[in-house]
Every structure is written in C-alpha cells, then in structure tokens.
C-alpha cells in the first residue's frame, strides 16, 4: 500500500510542479466557466421568453440548466484526460526511469495501480470542481438531486474507463503525443462502433452497442441507472487494466 501511495503521490507532484498543470487547470476552469455561463444564459432566455418565443413547458433547472452544462463539461474531460495521462508511462520510458522502476521490488499491479490512482485522483479533483457550479444551483434553485447524482455516477465510471485507457496506452509508447492521440482514438472509435451497431444483425448490434462509451452516459443523464451501462464501463475498465498489468508483468516472468 505504501508503494502504491508513493507512486501516486509522485504523479501528483510531477503534475503540479510543471507549468503544464497550470495550463490544464486554467483551460478546464475557463471552459467549465464558459459552459456554465452559456447554460445559465440559455436557461434565462427560456425562463424569460420574448414576444417572439413561448415559455417552455415544465422548465426546470435540472433538465434545462445543469444537465446541458454537465453534457458540455464532458467534452472538456474528453479533451483534457489524454493530456494528463499521456506522460504517465511514456515519459518514464523516454527518460529511462521505467528501467529503474521495474528493477525495484514493486509488483506490476502496484506500479500500474499507483499510476492509475495518481491520474484518477487528479481527474476526480477536476470533476469535484464542477460541484461548485452545481452547489450554486442547489443553493438558489431546486434541482432534482437524484438525477444529478446519476450523472456524476455515470461520469465517474466513464472517467475511470477513460483514464485507464490513457494510462495503458502510454505503456506502449515512448512518445507522449502518440499516447494522447491513441487515447483520443479510443473514445472516437465509438463512432465506428456506432456504425457497426447500426449495420450489424442481431445479436452483433447489441454487442457493438456495448462499446458506445459516450452513448452509455445518456441514460445516466436521464436519471436512469441500468446495470448494463455500469457493467459496460466496469468490464471494459478491468479488461484495459488487465492488458496493462500483463504488459508490465512481462518484466517479471519469462
């Protein structure tokens, strides 16, 4: 456990000691703030219709303000996470420190999970910052909290999957840019799976639909928690981490 925490803490230190951290944090806060402002402005327009428009029936802060804001916020995470995970193992390999890391008496799972924990907590910290916007709405309005909770559950599962993808991809390359681009591809290949799900006959359509990583979030946004959606993220995350573990384990057995 001490080894795992030591590796995770080093990840945080490295992140915050570089100007890159300031760039990522600034980018996140500017985009999150802009999206919140845009969602709020859109909500006010709907709440105060002009002569040309009619008042939206059943207008509420959950569906017409927070959910659109959180949907936009996900695009920020899709963009930022590969930038955080790209240096995880790729930089160690490029600098050669990876050779030393695997020469210490640290189990492959601890090396992988230490890096994973470091990046996941950073990303959850960013997700936690978005609660500031939600708490303003909770303070001033009456959002439907279970639905907001459902969105955050979905986002947590998605981020666990996405960070795992980024970390494991960085294990296969020394180039940080390649690492980030391949991680983007992991999410954007959902487009290919969407096409495959559309054109494939049953039961393959349902099989390919399993890999629509962003589409699974829609149920959570609607306040619907399906076991299938949770299983899709959990099984894929575990499978990806298993690939990473096998990759590191190659140094430990012939």
């Amino acid at each position: 456990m001490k080894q795992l925490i030591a590796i995770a803490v080093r990840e945080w230190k490295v992140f915050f000691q570089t100007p890159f951290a300031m760039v990522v944090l600034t980018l996140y806060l500017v985009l999150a703030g802009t999206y919140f402002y845009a969602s709020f402005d859109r909500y006010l327009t709907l709440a105060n219709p002009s002569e040309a428009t009619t008042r939206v029936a059943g207008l509420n802060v959950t569906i017409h303000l927070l959910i659109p804001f959180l949907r936009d916020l996900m695009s920020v995470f899709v963009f930022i996470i590969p930038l955080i995970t790209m240096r995880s193992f790729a930089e160690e390999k490029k600098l050669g420190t990876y050779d030393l890391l695997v020469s210490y008496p640290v189990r492959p799972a601890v090396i992988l999970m230490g890096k994973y924990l470091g990046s996941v907590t950073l990303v959850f910290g960013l997700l936690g910052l978005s609660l500031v916007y939600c708490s303003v709405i909770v303070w001033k309005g009456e959002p439907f909290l279970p639905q907001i909770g459902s969105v955050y559950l979905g986002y947590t599962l998605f981020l666990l999957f996405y960070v795992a993808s980024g970390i494991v991809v960085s294990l296969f390359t020394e180039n940080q840019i390649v690492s980030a681009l391949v991680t983007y591809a992991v999410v954007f290949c959902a487009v290919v799976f969407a096409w495959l799900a559309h054109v494939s006959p049953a039961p393959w359509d349902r099989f390919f639909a399993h890999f629509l990583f962003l589409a699974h979030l829609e149920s959570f946004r609607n306040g619907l928690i399906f076991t299938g959606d949770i299983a899709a993220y959990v099984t894929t995350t575990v499978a990806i981490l298993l690939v990473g573990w096998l990759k590191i384990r190659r140094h430990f057995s012939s």
Partner: protein
Amino acid sequence: MKVPPGSITGLIGQNGAGKSTLLKILAGFLVPETGRSGGAGGSGDDGEVFVDGLSYRKEPMAVRSRIGYMPETPLLYREMKVVEYLDFVGKLKRLNKEKRASECERLIRDCGLGQIYHKLIGSLSKGNRQRVALAQALLGEPRVLLLDEPTSALDPAQAIEIRRIIQGQKGKPPGGGGAVLMSSHVLSEISAVCDRVIFISSGEIRFEGSIDSFKGKSLESLFA
C-alpha cells in the same frame, strides 16, 4: 558466469558486447529467453536467472529486494529533490520510516551528498547525478550491486570519487556476502576497482578469473 560473494567483479568488453543487456537481465528489466546466468553464489538453468541463489522466475520480488541497480546514464526524476527521491526509492524498496532515515543519513555521508541533498535533481551536474544514482542503488544495503558504466562521461576527479565509493562497498552489507558487478569498457578502471574480471564479446564469456591473470592475456587470444 559466477560472481562470488564478497567480490567486486568487473564486466569488460567492447561496445555492443552485451554488458548492459546482461546487467538489465540481472536487474530484472529484461527477461532472458535462453542461456543462463547467476550472481553472488547463484547457479543457473536454461533461460533462468539466479541471484543470491534465488530464481527470478520463481521469486521475482525476493530477488529484486536483494539488488541495487545503477543504469549507465543517471536516469532519475529530474523534478524531485535528492532527499525526496531517496525517500521515494526507500518506500519502493519497502524500507520503514526509521530505516529510510538512517539509510539516507548513511548515504549522504558515504556518497558525499551533503551539499546537494535539498537540490532538484534536474539542477545537478552529471557527476552529482551519478552520485545520486549510486546512492539509490546502495539504498537498503542490497546484497548484489549492479553498476553499468558507473564512471562513464565523468571527469577524472569525479571518476576517482565514484571508484572510492564502489571500493567502500567491499565486504558490505554488514555480515558480508554481498557482491558487486560493474561494467566498463575501460580496462584501467576495472583494474583500479575490481578483484575479478569477466570479459565478454558478442554476448559470450571469453574470460573469467582474477584481474592479475587477465592482465597476462593478449587481446588477440580473447577475441579469437
């Protein structure tokens, strides 16, 4: 090959002979596919590495906890301070807090890190980074010390200082039985530090014995 306990053995050969590859195998970074090797009283079977009598395949963690490895170039976390880095390595080597503190104190003294202890590794000179790399290898008093070209690219004064530290490891850890295996392609360096020598060429051992008997060999006979 065999590296006897209590010895400082030099691994010599021309560039590309396989010295670094062999040390990476012994350090656990590379896994051998064929051949055999052992260290500090170990013996080997095909494709297996034994260090201190323990099999890498069967007990990879136990073997790693007995090894200190210093790679050819001091590949360290540049954004960490020396003190932070040694503490980090101590945690990875499963040392408790008291042991980490006492080890850091010993290594500051033995490796001459007093002036640079609180400096960022990235700001250190190559010689000082080499000292830090050696210190992380010595941390936890490993029974087998693997040093890959420990004085390469250092000026003569720095090289002498590093050699002094390596020679100070003879008979360590307390209780004896430890072994040092260092690679170099410079015979004078091996002669200055080691009491045994292994000469390899194209991945094969061409000579194994005392440094005195090696000096009597002609290069032609070694490469033949």
